[in-house]
Every structure is written in structure tokens, then in C-alpha cells.
């Protein structure tokens, strides 16, 4: 029997360009094309400027927007409860999916999982985990609250309470119990990285219930290497993505500062980043101040935000992609995108980054959060005659969208 798949995402790429919603939407489009799929739909939470009305609206054929949001992030409770047993139920009843593939429950709440099973327990539910939200109340980052954004490698009721002193250890028991009971209703979990998978196994998901499937990428040939002028080296670095404290852009700026002016003059760094303006004043000031000096000097080019379809073109004129995140990450989309473009990376040596970029093989790792370590890897990359070619040669072609969907369908079966 052919499957009918409803993909649920916490955002729609028409309005928001996070990695998770793009991955969800790409999968939806692949499911639609696949011969074993009878029909596929995409339901995305959206803010249409009128609050959490709970209403669902058609976006285009087979795509719906849902005005929902969270009022209790501790327990992940949805604002609009009425719609769960009315309009959301109407939608599930009308679509009759055999599979619901969720990406995220943030902004939507966990309740709808129970509602789907109540409508028809035969509907199988799969959840792709893009972060550590169930494990960590701190935006699912597994980074401590407070000064310094310290990394957190384990959760426990008492450790979590230290991050959130307003809550008791018992509050965290309640939280975990609530998440766990809802996760128990889910038929299978997908993690884009082994690192995240292990974290969730430690937390309580059964080993057999969670598999790793990397996010799919466009099925294209890598870009040609950047044309070098005579005597020029592979010395152009770029940063792609959000500019927020977890992404370590300040580490990159500090790395440049740790170099001498002469060292900096041997390289250039492009920042293709968005949302610096929405960050906290202190962080924004620090990054702006550092960047200002290097922009003036000619080392840094602040290119700014980009549309996903522009990214590939922007990679043409650079050699290396830097991912200096100070949190674990899961499977940063930019790593797969850089590999697709045939560009090696320099990444923090933790979590998903460490897993996805092999040190000295298809990129370089540096000691996370250490600007000096990053600086030395950048200097190495910019001066070596052979390193770049070697790394490029070792890049494995990333999983295509099509194969990603095939792997999912195999898991669902």
C-alpha cells in the first residue's frame, strides 16, 4: 500500500530560513515525487501577525500554515488548545495520512502527537530531531545558562535546576516525564548526526528506535576550484549562517585579532551572515567593533545575508568555509553545503562538527572556543601548497535529496 505522508514543520521556508524547516520542506518535495507515495502534504507553523488563533490555512496546494505558538516552554504546551480537537483534528481526519513525519515541535507544542494517535492509532509518527530540546530546556542547545555559555555534556534534574534556579529538580522530572510520555507515542526517530543520536539514547530513546540519516543536498557536481592568480594561495575563508553568540563569529574575529597585521594581510574572510541586528547589545557591539577594524584593513568583507539559492554562487570565490560554533551543533547544514560545493571546512572539534568534518582529511578541526587554535589552522590553510587540494579530493559527495527520502522511506517501512 502506498503511503500518505504529512510533513509537519515548526516553520515554512517561505517565511523562515532555518536549517530544520528547509530540510523538512526538501523532504516533503522528495516524498511528493517518490513513486511509493500516494500523496504528501506540508503543515508548517506560521506567525501571520494575528497571534496564535489556532487556525489552519491553505498556503498552496498540499501546503498548510498553522497559527500556533507555545505559552509554556518548560512543558512545551501550545497556546491554542481549542484547535487541537477541532481544526487540527479536521485536517488529520480529512488528509488521512498513514505517516506523519514531524520536524520539531517547538512553537507547536507536543500535544498534537497525542491528538494524531487519538484520531487514528494506525497513523505512524516519526520525528526528526534537529536539536536537544527534550534534553535541555536552554533552547535545546546543551549549553549552560549564564556567563560564558559553558558546554553541557549531561543532563540531570539537579544540573538542569542550576541553569534554571526558578525551577526545582522535581520540575525537571515533570518536564522529562512529559516529553518522554509523548515521545513514547512516536514510532521512530531520525537524527542527522550520530552525536545527537547518542545524546538521545543516553536520555532515554531506545537504540533501535533512532537512526542517523543525514540531511539531503542538491545532486550537483562540485564547483570548480577558485581560479588563483600567479603566486596566490588558498587563503579565502568564509562564514555562512546566522550571526548569534552560539555560532562563534566572535571566536573568528578574535582569531583575526590574535594574528599580526602581516599575517592577516595574507588572507581574507567573508561574512555571509544574517541577524546580527537582533542580537543582544553587548554581543553586537563586540562583533561590530572587531569587524570594523578588519573591514577597514581589508581582511574582512561583511557581505551580509543571502537567500539559500544564492549560497552556491557565493562559495565560488572562496576556498574554505569556517564553522566556529561554540555549541555542539547537530549536523550544520553549511557543512553539507560546503561539501556539495567542493569546499573543505575548518570547524570546532566538538559534537556534530567533529563528526562531519574529518581533521586533516576533508577539512581541519580546531580546539573549540579557542581563537588562537583557529588562527593557527587558518594560517596553516592559507599557507599550505597542498592541503586544500588534498582535502577537496577526500570530500565524499553528500547524500542527495532523493537518497535522503529513500533512506527515510526504508526506515518507515
Amino acid at each position: 500500500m502506498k503511503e500518505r505522508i504529512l510533513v509537519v514543520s515548526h516553520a515554512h521556508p517561505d517565511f523562515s530560513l532555518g536549517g530544520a524547516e528547509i530540510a523538512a520542506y526538501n523532504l516533503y518535495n522528495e516524498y511528493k515525487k517518490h513513486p511509493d507515495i500516494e500523496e504528501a502534504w506540508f503543515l508548517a507553523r506560521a506567525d501571520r501577525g494575528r497571534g496564535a488563533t489556532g487556525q489552519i490555512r491553505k498556503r498552496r496546494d498540499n501546503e498548510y500554515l498553522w497559527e500556533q505558538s507555545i505559552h509554556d516552554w518548560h512543558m512545551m504546551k501550545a497556546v491554542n488548545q481549542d484547535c487541537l480537537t477541532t481544526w487540527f483534528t479536521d485536517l488529520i481526519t480529512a488528509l488521512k495520512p498513514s505517516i506523519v513525519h514531524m520536524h520539531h515541535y517547538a512553537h507547536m507544542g507536543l500535544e498534537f502527537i497525542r491528538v494524531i494517535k487519538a484520531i487514528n492509532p494506525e497513523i505512524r509518527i516519526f520525528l526528526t530531531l534537529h536539536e536537544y530540546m527534550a534534553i535541555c530546556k536552554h533552547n535545546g542547545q546543551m549549553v549552560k545558562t549564564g556567563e560564558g555559555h559553558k558546554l553541557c555534556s549531561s543532563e540531570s534534574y539537579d544540573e538542569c535546576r542550576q541553569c534554571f534556579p526558578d525551577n526545582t529538580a522535581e520540575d525537571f522530572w515533570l518536564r522529562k516525564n512529559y516529553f518522554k510520555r509523548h515521545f513514547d507515542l512516536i514510532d521512530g526517530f531520525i537524527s542527522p548526526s550520530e552525536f545527537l543520536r547518542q545524546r538521545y539514547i543516553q536520555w532515554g530513546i531506545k537504540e533501535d528506535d533512532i537512526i542517523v540519516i543525514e540531511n539531503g543536498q542538491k545532486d550537483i557536481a562540485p564547483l570548480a576550484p577558485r581560479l588563483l592568480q600567479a603566486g596566490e594561495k588558498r587563503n579565502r575563508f568564509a562564514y555562512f549562517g546566522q550571526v548569534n553568540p552560539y555560532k562563534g563569529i566572535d571566536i573568528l574575529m578574535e582569531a583575526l585579532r590574535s594574528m599580526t597585521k602581516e599575517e592577516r594581510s595574507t588572507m581574507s574572510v567573508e561574512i555571509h551572515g544574517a541577524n546580527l541586528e537582533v542580537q543582544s547589545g553587548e554581543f553586537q557591539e563586540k562583533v561590530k567593533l572587531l569587524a570594523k577594524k578588519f573591514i577597514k584593513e581589508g581582511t574582512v568583507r561583511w557581505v551580509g545575508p543571502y537567500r539559500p539559492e544564492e549560497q552556491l554562487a557565493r562559495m565560488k570565490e572562496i576556498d574554505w568555509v569556517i564553522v566556529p560554533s561554540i555549541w555542539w551543533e547537530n549536523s550544520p547544514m553549511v557543512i553539507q553545503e560546503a561539501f556539495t560545493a567542493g569546499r573543505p571546512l575548518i570547524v570546532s572539534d566538538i559534537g556534530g562538527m567533529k563528526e562531519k568534518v574529518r581533521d586533516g582529511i576533508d577539512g581541519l578541526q580546531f580546539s573549540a572556543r579557542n581563537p588562537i587554535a583557529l588562527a593557527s589552522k587558518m594560517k596553516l590553510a592559507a599557507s599550505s601548497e597542498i592541503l586544500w587540494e588534498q582535502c577537496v579530493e577526500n570530500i565524499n559527495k553528500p547524500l542527495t535529496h532523493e537518497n535522503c527520502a529513500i533512506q527515510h522511506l526504508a526506515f518507515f517501512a
Partner: protein
Amino acid sequence: MLKLRKSKPVTTESPDSHVKRVITEEFDKHYYCETYGISEENDEAIDHFLTEGWKQGYDPCDWFSVDGYLKLNPDIKQSGVNPFFHYVVYGKHEHRLFKEPDLDIAGMTEMSPIVVAKSFANSEVYTEAQLAKQDAINNSDLTSWAKFLDGLDEQDTPHPFIKFNPEASVCFNSGMEGCITGWMLSAGVEIIWAEDKFGALYFIDAFYKYPRQDVFQAFQNSAIPVVSANLGFAIRIQNIKAGVELTFKGLSERGIHILASVVPDNIGSNPVDAAKWLFGLPTPMHLLSSRFNEFDGLIIANLMEARGTEVAKLPHRVYEFGVSPSSDVSIIIPLYGRIDFVESQLLSFADDPYIKEKAQLIFVVDDPNLLAPIRPLAENLYKLYKIPFKLIWGGVNRGFSGANNLGAEYADAPYLLFLNSDVFPQQPGWLESLKQAIESNEEIGVITPRLVFADGSIQHAGMTFLYRTDLNIWINHHPNMGLDPELDPNKELTFCPSVTGACMLMRRVDFDNIGGWSTDYLIGDFEDSDLCLKIRNTGKKVAYLPTVELTHLERQSFGITGTEDFRTKVVILNATKHQSKWRSLIESPASV
């Protein structure tokens, strides 16, 4: 405090003559002479009182007791001042007593309010009061109550077991309805009424109690025991006079006690203003429905009825643009808030041969702000589209129901289509299809098409009722809203519990039979389901026809009244009224 002023008299008046002059007015010469056998000549009596009379305990008049004053105020006795002079000049203002309370009253004051209250409940006077009150209510005549009160003494002591504290008092429509709020402590059964200075008597028509934690806390140690925090009150009094002092009185075994006086402010006659004021009274959400049912709803309904009577007297203005054909269907479109929708509707009417040949078009201007811009617009649009229409202005905003009813007064066709100004046909023939469906089925009382949002998802595919246990009300619900119309479980004509009023076709005769749209819902809610239930109550069916589809830019012509919170309370108020009329039909889904 005893205050013997030693200030110098401003004139050369001697202290003695000063005292004499001060008490002259209050001194009852006739009484004094009669009682103590003193000559009435000249000032003999008052001089006697001032020199020796008071020292012998002679009273200067029938109401003052020299002995009592000196006994109850030992400081005066000690000072040697004339007690009557002291009372008139100082003691009165210091609320000093000059008479020992009557023995039985003194005895009762020492008793606890609970005992007094219990004794009152078993007393003859209570039984008589109940009878007189009942008699007054039964005959709608307060004479028997006035007569009963005549036989009682007015006491100047506080009520022995009631503390009554009004905080705010208003009246609506110049006193037709009044509302007084505050708090009250009581140890027993209360007999409370109000009087004004013209002698008018008022019973309290409705008494709503609500929690007042602050009062509850403040009176924890009060002699009148407080058990629950339900100490706040709102009372309804009808036909009072704005700006005239209203005195509340309470009955005890001793007689009548003044509880408090208020001067109500006039809030005006608009029921919406009254609702805004009344909705400010604190009540937990789940109790609102019952409160509205027994309190606010009565006041608001009365004001709405009064307003309706006034509105009905207003003259209408009718502007005819062209002459409508003899028609099958009169299309009635109320205009409120926006008029840019008018041309978009005409665009599609102009393309529809059935509408051009068989429909009469009636726009009802229901918004005074549109009056100026609508006439030149209508003129231009008529010239451009050549579709005849009538434009009606009813003198005032009448609300959705009122405007529709007004339009119907000017409708000539055997069928009426009530259409919102933000509903737009997608292609010609829709009205003819709707009309054929109802014409061919006598059972159908009212029929509506499918409506979709601008993005194409379902806005209306029939309506149902949902019960909200937390609010104790039935609300209207649009099932399948937001879905692709292809997912509508209904593909053919279907009977529903209720349908939207945004686009509704019915026979003129049925419309008249049910008395048109109900105008007793505040601001606008539930009017469509109310109409559907009226139709169902006559045995006819409410139909949804999914094969006809129009676009509804919902909420763009309505929903601009008050805050979210006020809106919610209006919904509860209207839902309460709705279910008080239709509960049994709503709860019997089989009757669809």
C-alpha cells in the same frame, strides 16, 4: 474632647448673654413653662433654665435630656458648663449622646449580630415585612410597603447586623436602569430597600454577589462573621432619577436604619457603554454566564429594547439609483466600516445575467461615517456598472440584524439574500444555483453556499455548536475551516445545525414568519445561528450547498469594537442569551 473656647467675643456681649443668644433658637419655651410651671412672660423661662433650671435637671425642650447628657458625658458635668449650650455648640458635632438608649436596644447592642439577626428572622416585623414586600411585588405597587414602613420608627443607630458599603453607583438611560456596586457584610436575612428625597421607594431588582478578597481580609475580626469572600455586590434598581440622592435603608427589630446614600451618575443610554461599565465588575470567567443571565443581561436587554423603540421611530432615507427589474431575489448588503468592497462586488454582479435580470440590489448604510462618501461613490458606480440599486440609511448604526431587517423592509422579491459586503462571487450563476436549490425543496428554510478565504481554504462549510465547559456556554464553530475545499466531507446539499449569515438565502414568507433577524444580541454575534434555530423551530431545514462557492474576506468588515477582553465577554453575554432561547434545539443534534 471637651472644648471650652475662651476666645473673646467679637462684640462686647457678656458671656451670659452669648450663651442665651446661642440656645434661644433651640429652647422650647412653651415646653419648659408647661412642664416646670414657669411663667411664659418675657425671658423668664430661658433665664430660669440658664441660672438654675439645668442644675435641677430641667430639660430645655422635649428632645434633649440634661441629666442624660451630664451622665453620659462626665467631662461636661465636671466643667460646669451649661450642658444644652455645650451640646448645641460642640457636642452635636462631636456626636455626643444625650439620651441613654432605650433599654431593649441597649440590651440588643450587647448581643452579637448573629443573635440579633436570628431574632430578626423569627420576629413578627420580619414576617410582616415579607408579606408587605410580596404584596408590593405581586401588585407592582409599593403602597403596601410604604404603609408598612409608616408604622416603623426610623433609628439613628447603625444597623445591628448589616454593614452596607456602596462604592460606585451609576444609572443608564437617565435612570431607567441603575446599578450600585460595593460590599456588604450581613449576619442574617436582609430587608433592604432604597428611597429618594421625593419619597419614591425602590426595591432591589437583582442582587449579584462576587468575591472581594480585600474586604474579606479586612473584616476577619469583625463582629459580623465573614465566612466566604463573596462580599462584593452589584445591585440593579430600575426607574431611579439620575443625580438624585438615593438612600438605602435596612430593617431590624428596632425599626428602620439608614445604611448609606449614593448619587448615581448617568452613563447614557447606549447598551454598549452599559456593557462596558458592567463588564468591569470582577467575576471569574466560568461564572460570567450565570452572572450575565441573572444580572447584566437583564439591564442590557432592557436598554437594548428601549434603544430599539427609539431607533424604530427614526425616519429612513432611500436613494434609488435606477429602477430594479421585477425580481426573484432581493440582495441585501449592510455596509459597515469599509465601502471599497462595494465596487468589487459590483464587478461580479455586472457579469452575472441572472443578477442583472432577476435581482434587486439593496445596500443598507449602517455606519454614519460612510454616509458622506457613499453617495458620490454610488453615483459613480451606478454610471459605470449600470446596475440599479437602492441605498438605505436608517438614521443610526443598527447592527447586523437591524440593518438586515431594514433592508428587508425595502425588499420586493419573494426571496431574500443576506450578503456581507466582504463576500465576493467567483463566477456567474451562483445565485441562480442557490435559488434553484431552495425553490425545489420546500423543506429548506435557509440555504448558504461554501465560503472560502482569500487563500482558497474553507471559511464556511456549515456551522455546528460546541460546548465550552469552562465557560458554561455553547459557542458557534466552523468545522473544517482552513482545509482545501476538496477535503470538505460534504460534496452535496447537506442539512446543518446552523449556517453563516454572511451569505444566506431564504423565502420572504419564512423571513416574515420568524419575525426577521433578532436584534437582542449585543454588537453582533450569534445572530445567524439564532436565525437558523428560529427556522428549525418552525420545522424547516437549514441547508449548506457546497457546490456553490464564494470568497469571503472574513473579519475585514467587522471586528473593530473594543478590546479583546471586552469582545470575549460580549461573546459570553450573547452565548448566554442564545442558549437561554435555544438550549434544547442546540442539544438535540438529531433535530438537524
